[in-house]
């Protein structure tokens, strides 16, 4: 690492985040579970398989169109468990509160967490609260960890991805990132953009029921769809081809991206997942997704090519080609 101080970009989900994990955390914590660097660790205890994950939420603003830090903290962890094939069961919740934080805001956040947990069918079974002096955090930070049980017979992992796999996305990209941008910046834009923050466990359960052949699933959060695909291509050492034409983006999100010079491919999502399955299964998986409220706009967006150094090649809307790589530079910090 070429830095003697942590930069905001180290938390952006792009190249610098990966470098921080690879060079600072992994060498000390390394073990067979962690080194897979999937969204959850899949652990075998006795004869059962469990998945376990943790995530901290520092989103600013804490209330945004379509959710708040509380509902986000439940959805994010539920989704990290679900994409590893787990049925999420139990969550923990750790709160770091700033001295002076309004109790009625806390009430709203806790209520949203409880509703999100009930909606996702999980229980918040343990927790912790710390209060720090004014200025030591920005209002409220929340950490949630989660545990789920894995019953899917297949191995859901980047390592399972094969040449010829179809790549399917469950809906429009960039909604969360655009909603946060709009809520945060005084842009004077009138477009109404809601975050897509949602629990994906029920959608994923119906996908796994529809096909026993799913190879890999990821939720496309920080860094957006582009970063997730670039990471997968590099890790699986395959070429990934996607088509801009087939990737759904809402008109209002496109609008905000055009004005601000952002690429929806790299905007965060909180209710979107991308999956890899054999092309022969794409049809049944797609219809299972389209029948679910969180998969109505699902689409096959591309396919996995041959062994490669790990490139994502996007066919542009006009028929040209460009590479999609891990984002660098300041994206939109504190989106989750």
């Amino acid at each position, binding site marked *: 690492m070429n830095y003697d101080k942590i930069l905001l970009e180290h938390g952006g989900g792009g190249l*610098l985040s990966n470098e921080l994990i690879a060079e600072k955390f992994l060498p000390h914590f390394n073990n067979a579970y962690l080194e897979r660097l999937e969204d959850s660790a899949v652990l075998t205890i006795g004869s059962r398989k469990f998945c376990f994950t943790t995530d901290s939420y520092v989103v600013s603003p804490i209330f945004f169109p379509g959710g708040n830090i509380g509902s986000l903290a439940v959805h994010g962890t539920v989704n990290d468990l679900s994409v590893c094939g787990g049925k999420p069961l139990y969550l923990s919740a750790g709160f770091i509160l700033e001295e002076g934080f309004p109790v009625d805001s806390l009430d709203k956040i806790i209520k949203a967490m409880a509703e999100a947990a009930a909606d996702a069918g999980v229980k918040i079974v343990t927790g912790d609260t710390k209060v720090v002096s004014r200025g030591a955090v920005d209002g409220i930070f929340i950490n949630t960890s989660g545990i789920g049980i894995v019953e899917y017979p297949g191995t859901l992992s980047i390592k399972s991805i094969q040449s010829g796999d179809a790549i399917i996305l469950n809906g429009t990209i960039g909604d969360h990132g655009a909603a946060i941008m709009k809520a945060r910046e005084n842009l004077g834009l009138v477009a109404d953009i809601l975050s897509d923050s949602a629990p994906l466990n029920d959608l994923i359960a119906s996908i796994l029921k529809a096909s026993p052949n799913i190879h890999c699933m990821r939720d496309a959060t920080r860094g957006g769809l582009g970063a997730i695909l670039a990471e997968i291509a590099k890790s699986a050492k395959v070429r990934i081809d996607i088509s801009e034409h087939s990737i759904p983006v809402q008109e209002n999100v496109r609008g905000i991206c*055009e004005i601000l010079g952002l690429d929806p491919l790299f905007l965060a999502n909180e209710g979107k997942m991308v999956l890899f399955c054999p092309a022969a299964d794409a049809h049944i998986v797609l219809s299972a997704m389209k029948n679910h409220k969180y998969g109505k706009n699902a689409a096959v967006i591309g396919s996995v090519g041959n062994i490669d150094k790990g490139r994502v090649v996007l066919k542009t809307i006009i*028929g*040209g080609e*460009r590479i999609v790589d891990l984002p660098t*530079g*300041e994206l939109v910090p504190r989106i989750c």
Partner: protein
Amino acid sequence: MKYIDEYRDPALVAGLLKKISKVSDALASPVTIMEICGSHTYAIGHFGIRKLFPANINLISGPGCPVCVTSSRDVDIALYLASQENTIFATFGDMLRVPGTNSDSLQKRRAAGADVRVVSSADECIELSQSNPQKEVIMMGIGFETTAPTIAATVEHCRKKGIKNFSVFSVHKIVPPALCALIADPLLNIDGFLCPGHVSTMIGSDAYKMITQADRAAAITGFEPVDIMEGIWMILSQIESGKKEIAIQYSRGVRPEGNIRAMNFLKSMFQMATVEWRGLGPIPASGLVFNNTYAAFDALKKFDIPEIHSVEIKGCGCGDILRGIKAPQDCPLFKKACTPMNPIGPCMVSSEGTCSTHYKYY
């Protein structure tokens, strides 16, 4: 999306490509076309346009990324200003990672405690100045004729409102003198120029007479795929027919005389000075510095800038790349020591930078 999709219509693009192929087949020798503007460089990469062209059309990138042509010394002065006590240094996001001497940057200064704020518009500085009366808000004034009037408008607003804790470090540059330098460069032989649409809404097509005087082709072009394709076709047609002119493809924004009001406004606030362009060196009458009427808003006058010993980055090819005499792939540092994660030169930093575009999209 209305007014966007029309300019990205695959059928229109295909039609223009056919016309381009037809003219290029008739060309006696390969042609070199320079896109002057960083936004064109970005759009060409982003939409994957380059590969669609016939092989005898060589597109090269020019010096039209304002961040990239900012000299090391100007970056060092920005770093100095940002590190002064009781200041807020406001900048567009692209400038944050541009390396000065010893690879220092605003991003690193911010991590070390300097109050550096990324703004998307200069007028955000008005609110910053008013809510921080005990601090001096310094805006990095960067950009060509398109951006300069917006910053000038903020300065004028602050003057009228009596806001005194705001100043601008102006490294604004203007495009025509750089074009003269490129045309005069003996190492360059550019057949046609793809001229910047947005800058031209300000300066007008009349400002480009030096191009036709030097018997080169030109088209002022918008930033969507159909715009760029049509612009290229216009340039090729001029080369084929031998009749050179400043064609206006971007007719929805550009008039021959430009935006006279905005240009007069700039003239009332700034005077022209010889300034250093990275890659091109010092160019006479190419920089905008505050005149005496607005001296109170000039950060260079408000702060005592010490002698700064700036060092150009060793081995970095940005200078030659900005002149169009080298492609990023010709630079020994490209994709090796110099990556977007660890940029050595400015062309790897800005989203409009030639190296960044080549790294990202090719």
